[in-house]
């Protein structure tokens, strides 16, 4: 991410702050010519990860540090928070094998994150969670299928 065009921010994971961050991230990616799909998915991944911090990470009063980079073939992102250790890659998969009436309301956020990202890495460093993700830009997408 060092040579790419980079956006950095620090934000509390509250709905209002997340919405404001999403506005800035989409504007940044649009300004640098990133296609609408990659910009949307980057914003959605950030929104889900930050929301999860607030609802499950007990981090409402602790800001997370965000970095986004527009690279030629992808958008990369980094989210660092000081919450309890949590690897988003290990969250349980929601069940799709039940009818609409039985389907649980919830569990889709981190599933979406895993599906939208072309790569997703996690490390615990210096008492912080560090998540690094990538979203392929138009023309660089593989045949990533849904569930």
């Amino acid at each position, binding site marked *: 991410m060092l040579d790419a065009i980079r956006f950095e921010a620090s934000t509390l994971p509250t*709905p*209002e702050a*997340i*919405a404001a961050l*999403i506005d800035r991230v989409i504007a940044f990616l649009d300004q640098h010519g990133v296609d*609408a*799909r990659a910009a*949307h*998915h980057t*914003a*959605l991944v950030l*929104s*889900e990860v930050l*929301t999860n911090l607030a609802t499950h990470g007990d981090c409402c009063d602790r800001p997370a540090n965000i970095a986004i980079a527009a690279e030629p073939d992808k958008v990369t992102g980094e989210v660092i928070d000081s919450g309890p250790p949590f690897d988003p890659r290990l969250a349980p998969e*929601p069940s*799709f094998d039940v009818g*609409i*009436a039985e*389907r649980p*309301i*919830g569990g*889709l*956020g981190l*599933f*979406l994150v895993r*599906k*939208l990202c072309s790569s997703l890495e996690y490390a615990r460093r210096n008492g912080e969670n560090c998540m690094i993700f990538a979203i392929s830009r138009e023309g660089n997408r593989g045949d990533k299928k*849904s*569930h």
Partner: protein
Amino acid sequence: MIDCKDKDGTDIRDERIGDTFVVTAKGRLDGGASAAFAEKIGTLITNENPKLLIDFAGVDFVTSAGLRAVLVLVKKVKAAGGSFALCSVQEQVREVLDITGFTDMLRIHAARAEALSAMRG
């Protein structure tokens, strides 16, 4: 009649076309707006066998909280013996619905006229 704009920018308007409630939503359906979205539209579901169509043409961002709101409404409509559909879903939002299995679970129509025709039948 619902005609409001949430603080996070989700604009919701409803009208009745024949026996179908048609809700036009505009903006983001995210963590800040979804609960109010489900609650406001849920107030329309008061009769038996309700027909509810939500036009997503103006919705450009749906998070898992937004999906939960849609699921709450679907369950409420189904519990009342009614029918639920979405129409005019934007490409990016459609991909989210595909990934999460909502496409298989819901009736999703390309356009409002097509949806109304199908719901009449």
